[in-house]
């Protein structure tokens, strides 16, 4: 009986210490992600319809680069998309990007992917 009591105690101590380590790891990773938000560029990609030549690409890039918080933009008429790199910590709304795409006389499609703090 004493043997079982000791074993139960050992298992309880192991579980509690293990869970402490797991939670600590979660917290650590949250801290690391939060740090990434301010040090890494967030990259977003949108489908864009209406581009038919390399000249269209530069017209769209010019518009998107006007957004405060955009570090760089690369459009592709072949892939029908624009990849937008935001400045570290920048918060640019989807509406703002879509408005700029429309000002370039193109039509925004789906937001294809996000790499960075929205992951």
């Amino acid at each position, binding site marked *: 009986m004493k043997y079982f009591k000791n074993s139960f105690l050992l298992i309880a101590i192991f579980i509690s210490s293990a869970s402490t380590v797991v939670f600590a790891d979660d917290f650590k990773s949250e801290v690391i992600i939060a740090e990434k938000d301010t040090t890494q560029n967030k990259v977003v990609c949108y489908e864009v319809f*209406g581009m038919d*030549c390399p*000249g269209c690409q530069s017209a769209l890039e*010019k*518009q998107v680069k006007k957004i405060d918080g955009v570090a760089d933009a690369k459009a592709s008429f072949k892939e029908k998309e624009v990849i937008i790199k935001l400045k570290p910590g920048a918060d640019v709304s989807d509406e703002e990007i879509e408005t700029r795409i429309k000002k370039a006389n193109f039509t925004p499609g789906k937001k294809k992917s996000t790499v960075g703090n929205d992951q």
Partner: protein
Amino acid sequence: MINKFLNITLLLAFLLPLAFNSKAEGISVDAGLTPAQDRIIVRMQYRNIINKMGDNRMVMHMMPVVVAYGLSPDITLMMRNGYRAVGENETMMEMESQWMDPFLMGKVKLYRLNARNYTIGVAGFAGTSFPIRNGSTSKTYSPVVGLNASYRPGLWSFDLNNAYEWVNYHSGEKQSETRQMHLNLAISRNIILPGIENWVLAPVQEFSFVNDNPASSESSAHGFISPGFQIVSPHLKFEGLYQIAVNSSKSAGVTYGNRLILGLRLMF
């Protein structure tokens, strides 16, 4: 550096006290599609024109400069100037090498649909030349109105330009020397160049039709069949077109010969 170059180019373009009559013929400028807001396009061309009156030749070298600005996604302002150099002139017509009057034009988007696999656009335009030069030949305006349509399925482009022009309109007499209708269809296909990122080669085929209705003589019609090419990059476009005259011998007095057009377009 780019801004400095742009400023100089714009300044030169606006200072040139010249003009070039509006024609639907020639390489189209995005036809039914209006460019992006704040887009600046500078187009420079060299046109070699050979006309005949009877057996007498007249060779002209036209050098138009067009500056277009996207005021909004729906409205584009364009200004065109040009220098006309008269080469050989065996005819009795007096032609001098000179800057032409400036030509101003506005283009308005009427419809645009950007679908996944195609784009359709329709735009209307109106413009006129202004006789601001002392040496202006006629002291008249040449107003023009028109409608352009574009259909861009995938790598193909179909641009239809339609213009109606009152050439040398005398406001006192309320009559123009001639009225011209221009129809122009341009078909091209982008070929993506392997190994060269963001450069495209586009063979072009244009068909132009001009119906001329002079106030003092019979109307006539002529046209051009024009093979050509474009090389397009994000900020540069090289253009070349050879216009083969069709039915020009029936035009009143003048026989239009074949023409060569070479162009450079800068896009900011």
